[in-house]
């Protein structure tokens, strides 16, 4: 077991380095750079001389390999550098947005779990009855509604029927819970519904799978009391893959709410992400991709270890 864990940790290093390399190259392959975009955007003409000078300030005139090594050396010392667009430290820019993103992700996960586990279990226990169908239609509808569209509809409804709009800027939960929740509950609902769809399906199929196991079948045949005990027991076993899905989705929610954040005007990591790609803010995009990748890899790792620990049948490969 220990060897397995150590091996897995060592494997993370090349993966992370690879991600760093890909994003570094990808950003530089994109046409245009931060300087060009900054000045071309408004249609104002600025001299080539000024562009050259601004590039030099950002270190873009140095050889590519030099920039790469510099970046990696910085990361090793936990120095993420400054944003090429605003000139402020990247850690500062991320810190401002992280609280909001984490909170939306947590709230959405909460909603999703609240919906998914009972519905998914019910659908499995009543497989191929109308209960199952209704639940499946409800959850697939969640997958089928583009989240940006759902967001726009929600905002319009609030505006038209309640003449009210969620607050336009973020207030910390600890400062003013009312303002905070009235802003974040809507996107959390919109995202949570979609996210619950995946989780409901996963719950349904893994409960179904456990129900097919022999010991459960026997128990169910024996009588009511056993039925209850075993069903509860079975549920516990079935939750493992569900937790995996929830965990991985959660990792993505932090950086992946690109369109939803735009529709609800949330100052989160997803918006920063898209903005930094559009602005060719190399350093910012690189750091964000790195963070999302590390989160993903670590969550994945934890899930794998959990599996191995809980289910000794899994071979450590």
């Amino acid at each position, binding site marked *: 077991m220990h060897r397995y864990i150590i091996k897995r940790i060592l494997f993370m290093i090349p993966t992370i380095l690879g991600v760093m390399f890909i994003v570094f190259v990808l950003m530089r392959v994109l046409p245009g750079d931060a300087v060009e975009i900054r000045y071309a955007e408004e249609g104002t003409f600025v001299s080539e001389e000024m562009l050259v000078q601004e590039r030099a300030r950002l270190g873009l005139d140095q050889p590519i390999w030099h920039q790469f090594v510099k970046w990696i050396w910085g990361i090793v010392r936990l120095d993420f550098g400054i944003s090429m667009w605003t000139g402020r430290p990247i850690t500062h820019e991320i810190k401002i947005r992280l609280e909001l993103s984490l909170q939306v992700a947590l709230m959405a996960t909460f909603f999703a779990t609240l919906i998914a586990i009972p519905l998914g279990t019910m659908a499995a226990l009543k497989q191929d009855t109308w209960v199952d169908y209704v639940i499946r239609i409800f959850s697939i*509808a969640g997958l089928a509604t583009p989240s940006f569209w759902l967001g726009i509809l929600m905002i319009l409804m609030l505006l038209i029927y309640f003449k009210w709009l969620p607050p336009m800027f973020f207030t910390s939960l600890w400062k003013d819970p009312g303002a905070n929740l009235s802003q974040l509950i809507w996107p959390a609902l919109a995202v949570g519904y979609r996210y619950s769809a995946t989780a409901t399906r*996963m719950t349904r199929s893994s409960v179904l799978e456990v129900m097919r196991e022999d010991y459960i079948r026997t128990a169910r045949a024996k009588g009511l009391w056993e039925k209850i005990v075993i069903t509860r027991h079975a549920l516990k076993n079935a939750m493992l893959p569900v937790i995996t899905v929830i965990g991985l989705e959660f990792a993505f929610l932090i950086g992946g709410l690109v369109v939803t954040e735009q529709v609800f005007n949330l100052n989160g990591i997803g918006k920063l992400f898209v903005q930094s790609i559009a602005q060719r803010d190399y350093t910012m995009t690189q750091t964000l991709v790195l963070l999302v990748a590390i989160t993903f890899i670590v969550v994945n790792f934890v899930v794998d270890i959990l599996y191995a620990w809980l289910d000794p049948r899994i071979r450590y490969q």
Partner: protein
Amino acid sequence: MNTVEVTASTIRQKANTMPRWLRVVSRFARQKPLGTSGAVLILLMGLVAILADFIAPYDPLATRYDLMMQPPNAEFWLGTDAFGRDILSRLLYGSRTALLIGLSASFLGATIGAIIGVVSAYFAGKTDLIIQRLMDMLLSFPLIIMALAVVAVLGTGTGNVIIAIAVPMTPRCARVVRSSALAIRESPYIDAARALGFGHGRIIFRHMLPNVMAPYLIMLTVFLAQAILLEASLSFLGLGVSEPTAAWGLMLRGAAVEFAEQAPWMGIFPGLAISAAVFAFNLFGDSLRDALDPKLRI
């Protein structure tokens, strides 16, 4: 739906005289009514896409500045958009774009993914390790971010949008197919094939790939749904196909959002079309998984 059920029961009576594929279809129709309704919706969409030239009442590109933003009426059943173009016609033609991009992207993504997955499982050892780490790298980019980056590098346009959607799908399929292929690799007949001295290529393509058909097909339908949604999102962000091409995501953008309150028909119908299509593919995909490989986790 009634017609389907009636057909199904008639078929059951004549089951013995029916060809094999029809029997399979009829059994699926009986056991999975949800999946069947999904399949019917998909067929309908395919028909519309093929016959768009004949059934669309107007030229989807024809602008009529005297008839901007007309509400649904006898002449324009679903109304007109901000340029006086007929929304129904644009929706019908839009199914072409959605299917073309959806099918090609998911086919490309799932196929390459399946091959990578099988190759990885077959060779095992170092090859597997390296391929898996590569897939991990690709997987750790969020789907939409990866698609955004690919479009930014390659530029917009139908071909590039297909690639942008296929790239992030590849590692997802590779992963699922690999785990199925690992089991097949251990099976006696692969050993036998190896003992007979068959080449790697032959074993992979003739013996292993056909055996991962179930997860492959399931992934394909799931990807189709995701691809249609992703295409709509990219178009919505202005990075998909270009105007004036008829595409559902494009129809949801710009004026449709701006005039959402004054001319809601401009956005509601394309939104519904996207939902219906994604819904249908998901219904079908779910039932397909139930039928083919209930243990598959996607």
